[in-house]
Each structure stands twice: as structure tokens, then as C-alpha cells.
């Protein structure tokens, strides 16, 4: 009975690894169902990306979050550079300057920018006390986040731009922001709404108007909203079965392998199926908090929190839009939506969280 687990295996936060792999698997199942009738072979491509992402995941755990945080400024600068480049030099796809074409693949710099901003913000806040010069530090932190937000908004990619706000709010809240400033920040965001609104493309404005009043655009956005709700609802308790979803298979719901992948799951696996998927996300977010409690490094705590809020927000907005709780903004569902950049970024982010657990004993 002298069986001992090697130290390097014991150090790994297994729940995160298992949850990550499970979610990636669910994603592949859904993407196959969403796309097997069409050309493009999305499942194979996604599988390839999952392997790349897994490699990055393992490497990130092995290298450890400290190295990445130390490089955070450079990573941040590079992603800002990419965001500027994509705005000016990348040809538009579906009317947005969001992708860089590299060989057969399309890279979406806004995905990387989210993690880069979390890292640089974690560094910045951890190095500064909330007690001294809080106002000045908050303004600087605000600028760190505003820069990528505005660049992404300009693409235009409203959904991705919106992700930055909850990140900032969650991280400064934990850092110890004066509640008064938090309120001011909230009011400021409200005050800037007209400016953001005027920067939106007509179709984005339409989507938001439709969210508030579905009868505005009967043939465009509200049609999508209705059809996606029918797709989700028709899944019922148990679903129609894998590959049997008529709403998504018959093209009633657009972009069903990317933004609306959740419709496929909901229609084919029903309430119990999606409950299980949401549970996986809940456990993943819980794991991030668990890791936070296991480290004394403030940078690491902020990093894990930022990643948890990034996950929670994307999941909330994406699933919410399929049932009309949130507006349709074009945001991917982490792990499940087709797309290499999103998958790689999510795996990398969770690799960072897992590595915090591994390095928790180093002081």
C-alpha cells in the first residue's frame, strides 16, 4: 500500500482540467450537430484548435502565471498593436474589421485583448494600495481598460467591447475601491452611452432597439430573436436528441455554430442538458474562487477574479440572448462556440488559474 501520487500531479488543480476538457468536448458535439450538413468541416478545425489550446493550457500551467504577469505589459502592448492593425489593414469580414487572416485561419485579436487587459490590470492594481491616491490610480486603471474597449468598439464588435466593463468593475471592487467611486464610474458609463450609441453601426443599434421592442425589425433582428427562442424552448425538458434539432438544422437560427451554438444544445439536449452545461460553468467559476482563496499573492487573486468574471459575463450574455434576457450583441460562448481564438484564449486563461493553484506555496 505504499502507493504515492507524484508531487507534480498532486499540484495540479484537477477539477479545472477536467471541467475544461468536458466543456471543450461538449462544444465539439454541438458544433458537429450545427455544421454537419454544411461544407466547411468546422468540427475537424475545432478539434485541431482544441489540440492547440490544450498544448497552450499545459504549457501555461508548466510555465506558471508569474512569468506571464511579468510580461503582461508587453503582451498588452502587442494586443493593442494588433487591434490597431486589424482596424486599419484587415479586410472586413461580415462588415467588421475583427479578423486577421493567417493562412487558412482567422485570428480575432479582441479575444486576446480581453486576457491581456485582465493581466495588466491585475499587475497594476496589486502594485498600488487602494488607500493612497485612489482617485489617480482609478483613472489610470480606467484608461488601461478604455483603450482596448474603444478599439474593439470601433471594429465594430459591441459584444466584445462590453466584456471589458464587468472585468474592470469586479477587479476594482475586490481591490477595495471606494464605493462612492464605483457609483461615479457607473454614472459615467451611463453618461457615455449616447457616445457609444452614436458609434454603433445601424444594425447594432437595431439589435438593441429590438431587444427593447421586438416589433421594430420584423425581418431582421427580431426574427432572429424569435427563432432562437423557439429553438431553445422547443427543446423542452429532454431535448429532441443529438442532430435532431429542426430549428437550427433548417437554418432558422443564424450563425448557429458560433454565436448561437447554445440554441443547438438547448434544442437537442433540452433543459436537463443545458442545466448540466451551466453546472459545468458554475463549477469552473467556483474553482477560480477556490484558487483565489488558496493564494496569498494579490496579483494572482486579481488575475483569477478577472478570469472568473470574464467567463461569467460571456456565459450570461451569450445564453441570455438566446432566450431574450440580454440583447443580441455577437459574443461567443466560451468553449462551445466555434472559433480558434476564443478557444485558445479561454484555455490559456484557465491555464493561468490552474497554475496559481500549483504555485500557491511559493511565497
Amino acid at each position: 500500500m505504499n502507493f504515492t501520487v507524484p508531487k507534480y500531479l498532486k499540484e495540479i488543480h484537477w477539477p479545472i482540467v477536467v471541467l475544461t476538457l468536458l466543456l471543450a468536448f461538449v462544444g465539439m458535439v454541438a458544433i458537429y450537430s450545427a455544421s454537419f450538413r454544411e461544407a466547411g468541416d468546422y468540427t475537424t478545425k475545432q478539434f485541431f484548435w482544441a489540440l492547440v489550446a490544450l498544448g497552450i493550457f499545459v504549457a501555461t500551467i508548466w510555465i506558471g502565471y508569474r512569468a506571464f504577469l511579468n510580461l503582461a505589459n508587453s503582451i498588452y502592448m502587442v494586443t493593442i498593436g494588433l487591434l490597431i492593425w486589424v482596424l486599419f489593414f484587415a479586410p472586413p469580414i461580415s462588415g467588421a474589421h475583427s479578423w486577421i487572416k493567417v493562412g487558412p485561419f482567422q485570428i480575432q485579436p479582441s479575444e486576446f485583448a480581453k486576457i491581456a487587459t485582465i493581466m495588466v490590470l491585475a499587475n497594476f492594481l496589486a502594485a498600488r494600495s487602494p488607500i493612497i491616491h485612489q482617485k489617480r490610480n482609478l483613472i489610470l486603471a480606467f484608461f488601461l481598460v478604455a483603450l482596448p474597449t474603444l478599439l474593439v468598439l470601433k471594429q465594430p464588435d459591441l459584444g466584445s467591447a462590453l466584456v471589458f466593463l464587468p472585468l474592470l468593475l469586479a477587479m476594482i471592487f475586490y481591490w477595495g475601491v471606494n464605493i462612492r467611486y464605483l457609483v461615479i464610474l457607473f454614472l459615467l458609463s451611463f453618461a457615455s452611452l449616447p457616445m457609444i450609441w452614436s458609434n454603433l453601426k445601424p444594425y447594432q443599434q437595431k439589435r438593441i432597439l429590438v431587444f427593447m421592442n421586438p416589433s421594430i425589425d420584423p425581418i431582421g433582428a427580431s426574427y432572429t430573436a424569435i427563432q432562437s427562442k423557439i429553438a431553445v424552448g422547443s427543446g423542452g425538458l429532454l431535448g429532441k436528441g443529438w442532430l435532431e434539432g429542426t430549428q437550427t438544422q433548417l437554418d432558422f437560427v443564424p450563425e448557429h455554430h458560433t454565436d448561437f451554438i447554445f440554441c443547438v444544445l438547448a434544442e437537442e439536449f433540452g433543459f436537463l442538458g443545458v442545466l448540466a452545461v451551466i453546472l459545468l460553468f458554475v463549477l469552473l467559476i467556483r474553482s477560480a474562487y477556490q484558487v483565489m482563496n488558496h493564494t496569498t499573492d494579490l496579483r494572482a487573486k486579481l488575475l483569477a477574479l478577472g478570469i472568473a468574471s470574464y467567463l461569467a459575463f460571456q456565459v450570461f450574455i451569450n445564453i441570455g440572448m438566446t432566450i431574450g434576457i440580454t440583447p443580441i450583441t455577437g459574443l461567443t460562448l466560451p468553449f462551445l462556440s466555434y472559433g480558434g481564438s476564443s478557444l485558445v484564449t479561454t484555455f490559456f486563461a484557465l491555464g493561468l488559474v490552474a497554475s496559481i493553484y500549483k504555485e500557491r506555496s511559493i511565497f
Partner: protein
Amino acid sequence: MMLKPSIRIYVLQFVMLGALALLVVGLFQTQVLRGGYYRRASEQNRIRIIRLEAPRGNIYDRNGVLLATSRPAYHVYAIPEDFDPQDISTIGRFLNLSEVKIRTLLSQARHASFTPVLLKQDVSKEVAMKIEERRPGLGGIFIQEGFIRSYPLKEVAAHLVGYIGKISPEEYKNLDPSVYHYGSWIGRAGVERVFDAHLRGEDGGRQLEVDARGVPIRLMGEKEPVPGKDLYLTLDARLEEKIRPLVQGRYAAILVMDLKQGGMLAATSTPSFDPNVFVTPGRAKERLEVIGSKQRRLLDRSLNGLYPPGSIFKLATAIAGLETHTITPHTTFNCPGYFRFNGRSRAFKCWFHEGHGRVDLYTAIERSCNVYFFNVGRLLGEKRLSEYVKKLGFGSPVALELPTAGGLVPDAEWKKKIHRDSWYPGDTITLAIGQSYLLVSPLQILRLVALVASEGKRFDPFIVLEEDLRGKHETHFSIRSETFETLRRGMLQVVQSNRGTGQLARVNFAKLAAKTGTAQAPPGEAHAWFGGFFPYENPEVAFVVFVERGKSGGITAGQIAKRVAHIYHELYSPQIS
């Protein structure tokens, strides 16, 4: 106020997990409580979207003559899901389509059986009415009013106006899906392409609920299409229509520019094409003929054709010489009929083998003396000459609203890179007379002529009447007015002097000034150029006539130019006299 870190963590966790819990509640409501309702809705998905095409804006010339318009047409569609195969023979009779053809069309849309399939476009009103009467019995069939583009003047200004085409699936991927749809029309060439966003309106649509047989029972929502905006061009269709026959049957281009306002009056390029073949159903064969034409009929020779300019380019060399103070108008060179760098070099010939004798700049322009400009080129050197020529806009596109060709101005660096050969003094002096590797478009020559004629006030022309829609135009040139005056006088002598090369273009109603060009382009005959303006005092128009393989600028192009001037005069004489 500060909360303890542990409490802050609880608050954050509560918010995040609370949000996910809210999703679960929403999903429970949608899937379990209302699941039955949505299940029925999905099983008999009875909502159909019918797109309503927005009419595209018209294109007019400066006088309101229609250049492009849209006429209403009826198209017959079928929604495969609602269509009863038993009706195939009935509908086939109405539309004069075979059963096999209809089956093929329907099966192409197997994957999206709720998306309307176009059975036949542009059916007559009678057929449309007949189908409409029978419709309660014909599930899944409907008539949609659409538009068919038409270009009433056919070949006239076809290159400039352009045409539209249906969006291909590859293109669709890169376009904004809220503006463009599968099967939408999009500008493919000319003004139709560049001003597509202006001309195209916003498509509307109907959301219909249909019964089990596919017959609409309820209109759930409707969005009216927003018609596209009209566009007015600076072109004068009458002028264009009248000058086109002058070059019919030739490979040629004529450009006429209004110097008072700066707009383009005519831009003719032959051989041309009838843009209607791109938009009229059933003319696919002609369309392929135009596209594959060996005559390159789609090429707008006036804007995008690139040729050596020959002697007409001496105007540019003269400007470079005068502006760099390399020569004055009174500088003379002796022309013995040829030019040698030194005793051992080869002889570069003047076109007039007997030699022009000792000539000054005016006479050199008047008689188009090569030797004079060989000397100017030699004195300027490769660097100064090519730099100045580039400053005058050669080698870069003209800032028209449409894309135009940039052409080529060779220099030592270019020759080394492309031909792996050094630049010889002979290259410089042949460049000075518009030969060498130089390539220019008729439009680039037009703007040079316009610049000289207007003494620096006009350069890049425009074609859109509305100022807000125009691009940015270069207007600033630091060229001395004496230089312009010298060139204008030289050009006047070309036509008015009895020894000028452009005498054939002399007209009796005004003093016309011009420069000829006969560009060697072996193998084959030389290209003919003739660029000028009139009246000499206070000029109204600048023009360029170009004839591919026209042999002689002074004769072929000059005679055409004279008739262009007459036609213009007939149309606009009240203003002239």
C-alpha cells in the same frame, strides 16, 4: 466605506453565480413551462420571410437625361417546404418551364427548404395576374415585385456608368449582412460600383404566417423598403452620344472636360458594350461575349488604358525645363534632323529628317521638334526629369471618383529593378519626347492639358455633380504663370501656324490650341494623340483624342478633334457667342 476582503469575495461570487442562476430560471421558463408551445411552433414553423427589394437610385447626366434606371418586374418564387409537387405541371405551364427544370431548381435548395427559390424572373404582368388568381390553390408559390436595372442609352457612357451584378456567395461572406443579402444586386463597375452605398436603398420585407398548405394567412410584420438615392453626373449625354460615332469601329478614347467648373463632359471609350446585358434576364450569352471579348470591350481606354504618349508629352518636358530654369522660352537648339551625344554615339532621329534648323521653344512645340527636347532632356538629366514628370501626376492615378490607372514613369531605380540594366543617357532623352518605357492614360494627358489651359486652376476632373460626394482633388501647383503662358502660346501655334503639326484641327468659330502626339509602339502602327483646349482666351473646354494604332496624331486624331470641337460648339454655341 470599505468592506472586508472576504465579504467582497462573497459579494462577487453572489453576483456571478446569481447571474447564472437567473439563466437557469429563464431557461426553465422557456423550455419547461412554455416548452410545449415552442415545440409546436418549431414543428409547424409557420413564419416566412419575404424580402422586398428596394429600388435603386437613378443615374442622370448634368441635364437630367437618364443614364441608369430601374423598371419594376415580377418574379415568381417558390418555398420548397410549402410547395406541393403535384402543382409542378400547372406552374410549369404558366411559366413555360419544363418539369425537370423546376425539380432541379427546387432540389438545389434542399438544405434551406424555407428559403424562397426563384423560379422565373421578369414574367409578364398577365402571367403574374394568372398565378395570383390561382394562388389559394398553389401553396408555396408567390409573386414578388422586384426591379430590373436598365441603361436606356446603352453603349453611351457605359464604362463610366458601369453596371450591377448579383452578389456571389464568396462576396456575401465579407459583406455586412444587414445591408446585403443572398441574391442582392451590387455595383460591379463604374459609378454603379463606387457609389453603390448611395444608390442602393434599404431592403424591406414581410414576415408572414402561412397555413399548413403554405398559403399566407396573416401578415405579422412589414418593413417598407427605403428607395436608393439618385445621382447626377457632370457628363453631357448629348455630347457623348454625338462624339461616339466619330471613333466607332476604332480602338479609341475621347475625353472632354469643362474647364469652367472642372467636371468631365464626356468620356468615350471604344469598343464599348451594352451594360443591359449584365442585368437583363436571358442575355447571359451576350454577357459572356462581352466579358471574354478579345477587343477588351470592358476596358475603359480613356481612364485605364495605358500607352506611350509620344510627342504630346513634350508639354511635360517643357514645364520641367522652364520651371528648373534649365531653359527659357528663347533658348535655341539646332536641329540637323538627328541628335548625337558625341561623335561616336548613335544618332537619335527627329521625325523631320531634313531637320528643323535652329529653333526656340515656341517653334519646337509648334513643329514638335524631337532634337530640341532631346537637348532639354539631356540638360535636365534622368533624376530631375522623372521627378518633375511625377509631380505633374504621371505614374499615379488621377483623383477621379472612379479608380483609374497610374501608369509608369521609368527611372534608373525602376529600370535596375525590373530590367536589371543600367539607365543610359539615351533613356533620358527618349523619355523627354514621351517614348522610352513611359506609359500614360488619356485621362492623365487630359489633366496635363487642363492644367496648362487653365493656367494652374484645373487639374483633376470630377464626374459627380454633387460636391459632397466628390473625392479630394489636388489644386495647388507652384508653377509660374510665365511657364503656362509659354506653353499656351506654343500650343496655339501648333494649330494656327501654317507649319504647326495640328493644323487640321483648326476651327472657324474659335482659336483652338493643342499638341499632337504620334507614339511609336512597335510592333504595329503608331498611336495617335491630340490634346487641346478652346477658346484660346478664357478657355471653356479641354479635350484629348486618342486613337490606338491611329498612325498620326496630327492627321487621325486631329481631324476627330476638329469634329469634337464642332459638335461642342453646336451644342453650346449660345454660351460661346
